[in-house]
């Protein structure tokens, strides 16, 4: 009998709001969080909108993603009925987390230009600007992970993983494996990313991946007129526990983390396999892991970035797996509401999927107006749908052909 992994706590920070209740309200109302950029003066910048976390109080620099992760972590522990600071360091408590690429302090470089302007050798620049190197070292993913673990009294293994936009699912899936193979009884799993930053946005612009439409309709997953994605930011944390561990302390599971699948496209570096070969493999892997058939899945939270090829490949993968039953599967992408949270995307969507199960809610795929024959899916259009849900899947795919799928089951 395999050790079973359940979710006993969850926390979320996203463009839909801070916390589970704010997120829940936005999903219910079909309200998106994409808006004109506030993080920097974007007048004349080629990208004009993003999904930013509302409200103030968060640092606006390289410390932002850790701050968001800590907020999500606090909420996850609270919903799990635990105090992260309670008790001694626990060797059976592990961390599996994906931290986004730390943003470069361009302001510091610009302010100190006189100290390095005569060279373009990065090593020489760092020799002259040791404060930049110290800052980077302090916010390296492994350093952030160590602090999250220390804050949570986790003395078990600390896994920092990075699989591009599949990272969140992979971090959570790895947490499931740690519990199944008895390496931990409780895992703090999730992801964080804050890339609403001039350099990051420019890098995606160079890849021709971004939408340039007005904020309200910028991201249109699966719509025939879709033009690209919108960068967002956020963090999500789930508390994973071995079911017996949760029961012994009287914690009620929010859901079972029933299945996880991972695969490689082995096709290209920027383009996904057009028939969704790798995506289908990850989906099938998650179903096999969960011991479920495709028809058992009540709702799919799609990766659905809003780029032409990505949505087409995901739709092809769903067709491959569901075959003649594909019309029975309600599908929506919440990226039209949140933007693409990159490293954090699938972790945030896993928590959204958890809320969907709890509330019997299928969020609307915003901005879906023109059905695309290449993405012929049962899209949740116009407004959210309400129905009892028992099993839901969430996909996360990334550059380099990295694919991951999670399955959550209510009971």
């Amino acid at each position, binding site marked *: 009998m395999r050790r079973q992994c359940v979710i006993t706590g969850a926390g979320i920070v996203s463009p839909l709001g801070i916390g589970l209740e704010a997120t829940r309200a936005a999903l219910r109302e079909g309200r998106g969080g994409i808006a004109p950029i506030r993080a920097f003066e974007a007048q004349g910048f080629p990208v004009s909108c993003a999904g930013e976390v509302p409200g103030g109080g968060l640092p606006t620099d390289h410390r932002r993603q850790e701050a968001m992760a800590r907020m999500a972590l606090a909420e996850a522990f609270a919903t799990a009925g635990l105090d992260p600071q309670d008790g001694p360091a626990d060797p059976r408590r592990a961390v599996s987390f994906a931290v986004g*690429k730390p943003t470069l302090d361009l302001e510091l*470089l610009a302010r100190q230009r006189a100290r390095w302007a005569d060279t373009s050798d990065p090593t020489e620049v760092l020799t002259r600007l040791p404060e930049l190197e110290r800052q980077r070292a302090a916010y390296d993913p*492994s350093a952030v992970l160590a602090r999250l673990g220390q804050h949570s009294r986790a003395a078990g293994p600390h896994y920092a993983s990075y699989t591009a936009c599949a990272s969140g699912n992979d971090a959570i899936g790895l947490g499931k494996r740690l519990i199944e193979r008895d390496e931990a009884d409780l895992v703090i799993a999730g992801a964080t990313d804050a890339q609403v930053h001039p350099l990051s946005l420019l890098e995606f612009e160079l890849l021709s991946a971004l939408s340039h439409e007005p904020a309200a309709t910028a991201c249109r997953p699966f719509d025939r007129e879709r033009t690209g994605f919108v960068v967002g930011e956020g963090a999500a944390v789930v508390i994973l526990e071995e079911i017996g561990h949760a029961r012994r302390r009287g914690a009620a599971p929010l859901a079972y983390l029933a299945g996880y699948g991972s695969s490689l496209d082995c096709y290209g*570096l920027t383009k996904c396999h057009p028939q969704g070969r790798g995506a289908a493999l990850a989906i099938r892997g998650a179903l096999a892991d969960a011991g479920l058939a495709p028809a058992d899945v009540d709702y799919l939270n799609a990766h659905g970035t809003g780029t032409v090829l990505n949505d087409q490949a995901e739709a092809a993968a769903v067709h491959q797996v569901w075959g003649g039953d594909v019309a029975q599967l309600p599908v929506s992408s919440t990226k039209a509401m949140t933007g693409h949270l990159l490293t954090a995307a699938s972790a945030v969507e896993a928590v959204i999927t958890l809320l969907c199960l709890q509330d019997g809610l299928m969020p609307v795929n915003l901005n879906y107006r023109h059905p695309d024959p290449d993405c012929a899916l049962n899209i949740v259009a116009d407004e959210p749908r309400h129905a009892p849900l028992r099993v839901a899947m969430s996909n996360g795919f990334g*550059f380099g*052909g990295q694919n991951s799928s999670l399955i959550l089951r209510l009971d």
Partner: protein
Amino acid sequence: MTPPACAERRALPRRRVAITGAGALSPGGVGIEAYRRWLPGSAGERIPGFNPAEYVRSPKLLRSMHRTFQLVAAASVLAMRAAGLPGAEQLGPAGITPERAGIAAALADMTPLTSDLLQVLAATGPGAAGQPISWSQFADLGLHKLHPFRRLTLLANMAAAHTSLLFGLQGPSFTFTSGGAAGAQTLAQAYWTITHDRADLMLCQTADSPEQSFSAHPAAELAGAVVLEHWESAQRRGVPVIAELVADAPGEMLPAAVAASPAVSLMHALLAIETPHAQPLRLSAWLASEGGTPQRRGGAA
């Protein structure tokens, strides 16, 4: 800490795992013995005479790989050659299903501080004396001066993407960025992926390159790879087994000590499989085996 024994643990499937290939490059040259001879080396040293075209035949693929990824690919080619699987076309005849062959990589976060970015920033105004940077000017210059695929060259998981293309691997994929623990984590994760029947082959890989390091004192250049394979698969295709890898309990913990970088911790493990082993290697003992201190192994500590 060793977890207590329990019935659940004993009931888990325990497929046997063989080490069937290994490869290494270091400032001492090609191979594990060259790496051992090089120890103790100096920080910042590079691999002499490294020619990536010797390992990656596709000029197009090679152009998309910066030096760290070229090094990962080279070590992986050495390991897969040793395992008798030098290319994607060998998987099928060897009876290995591509969907059951995956990758576990250990890498440091890639530095975004590149010379082309510095040139763009130097030309962007004003930014000095507390004035705000002109982001529109930064974008205008950046769109012309920065490499279109810049973002992709900075993603740690691209090492796995390149390698999957070289060998046709479509199975589970993990990239760990947990600093010095990452190398050991790839080996452990790959081991459990095979024992729990989620893959038949896992290629573990790593590299450190001064060029992609965010440091004024970069570590030495190192690259290593190990092929772990389901025992029956190795037996069926008759490949020499370097050692069997075993673990006493599914929850066997990784060693608490970490090395100086992702590459060092995997290279550390390579030293222990230099010669064929008559006795199985225990996972925890392997990952904690003596290969020298981080200082001896590249001076990056």
